[in-house]
């Protein structure tokens, strides 16, 4: 880091209480500008876009404003999300794991007007039996085509009957500005799926 001679460090915290001591000390000793955000919720992403824009001068601010407008449009309630009823937001199949309350994707889903069938735990590991008993109206599979194919093999009514929305954009899995095109792509997938109905 010292060899790179940065003037600004944008730090994404993974723990509470600000940047790690050694980063803060380095920045202080060398007069680097240090800005840090912890991205747990959609509102944190919004604050980060606004803050980074402010750090980059008037041009940066304009870009940030454009991004924020796009972000707000992407996160606006979507009738298609509400129409699906309680869903499981699945991101792994072996073992099945889903996004629950307290996770960033659950936050996004609620912003879109959707409802989550999982009511406890941010990233709970489920059993297939648990999924079958929850019997969600639809399953949103967030991940690769390989994950989608694995999910389709699980003996859960929604998956067997093709009530699946596939969100393939990896931007959904990591909080940041890249979530904007990912949410736009999810909205497109929702519109397409809901208009067509179950795939089987």
């Amino acid at each position, binding site marked *: 880091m010292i060899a790179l001679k940065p003037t600004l460090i944008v730090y994404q915290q993974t723990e509470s209480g600000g940047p790690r001591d050694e980063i803060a000390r380095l920045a202080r000793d060398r007069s680097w500008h240090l800005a840090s955000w912890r991205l747990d919720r959609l509102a944190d992403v919004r604050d980060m876009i606004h803050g980074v824009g402010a750090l980059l001068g008037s041009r940066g601010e304009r870009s940030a404003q454009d991004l924020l407008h796009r972000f707000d449009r992407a996160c606006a309630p979507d009738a298609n999300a509400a129409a699906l009823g309680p869903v499981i937001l699945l991101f*792994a199949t072996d*073992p099945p794991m889903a996004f629950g309350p307290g996770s960033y994707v659950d936050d996004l889903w609620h912003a879109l007007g959707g409802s989550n069938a999982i009511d406890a*735990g941010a990233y709970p*590991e489920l059993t*297939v*039996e648990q999924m079958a008993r929850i019997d969600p109206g639809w399953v949103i599979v967030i991940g690769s085509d*390989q994950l989608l194919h694995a999910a389709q093999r699980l003996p859960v009514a929604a998956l067997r009957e093709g009530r699946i929305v596939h969100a393939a954009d990896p931007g959904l899995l990591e909080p940041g500005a890249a979530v904007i095109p990912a949410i736009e792509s999810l909205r497109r997938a929702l519109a397409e799926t809901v208009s067509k109905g179950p795939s089987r």
Partner: protein
Amino acid sequence: MTNPAHDNTAPMPSRDWSAWHSRLGIVVMALFFMFAFALRLHVGRGATGAVFGWPHETGILSLRLTAAACCAIAGAALGVSGLLLQSLLRNPLASPFILGLSAGAGLGMTAATWLALAFPPFAWLLMGGALLPASVGALASLALVVAIGRRRGVIDPLTLVLAGVIVSSLASAMTLLIQHLLPFEVRGRIDAWMLGRIPEVTPGAIAWLAGTITVAGVVVAHRLGRAMDAGALSDAEAISVGLDLPRLRVWLLLVAATLAAAATALCGPLAFIGLVAPHLARMVCGARHRLLVIGAALAGMTLLIAAEVVRQIIDLGAGRLPIGVVTAILGSIAFLWLLRRFQPVQA
């Protein structure tokens, strides 16, 4: 007070009584296994926690049966594998972990995941889940252990253990290195597999293959029982009664490795079952290996199903305990109890 098990002056039980006692032990173990299997069919997970009772809903029984059957297959394979290794190495602490089989299986799985991601034509490696990479990894690490552990062309138990430690450390280091190269979101998947898994849904071919390997392994181990009894003597004594010791050691190693590979491919690396099951079997069935093989299989099956039932019942709020953690906790408690119960009394 003297422990009768170590009192040379105590009258020896008659052969008939001993055989009857061992067979009764097998029956008791079989009853425990059937109870555990039935219990697993009556315990599952609902939307908000554990649910108890016979599943009347469509498809739920099949999920529970698959989980119980996978536990039975992997438990039997690990129990018998541990028994064969303890007999081969004449070391009561031997288990599939000690020869680097589990670490090798983990390396195989991690390497296959990396290959499939970096070079998509290799995606077929993971088509059967962990079966192919874990088996290849376990058997390759065994080959390396045997290559290092031979002295003058003969398998030496002590060198074999040391070779196992070396290969295990090497495989673990390689696994960490490859994990470091994997994308962040994939590492979680590997970590989850390394903590063990009990599948509720598994391709039929994989379950049948693992089941067939396990049954064949148990049958071969049972047939080797008398030879293992003779092999428990010193090398000189075993050879004097006509035992082909080098040949026996090769067989024991091959069967133990194949069984451990089948169990790991089906359920991931599971600690302590291979270590504790043979000790439980010895406690109930005595020292004859033909009965011990059956006892170790029953003990392994019962332990793993019991661990799976515990895992279904305990709710951490955000998911369940990994099965590998449950087997380690239950196994260490059982092992501590065995150690305290059968510790030789010092003069």
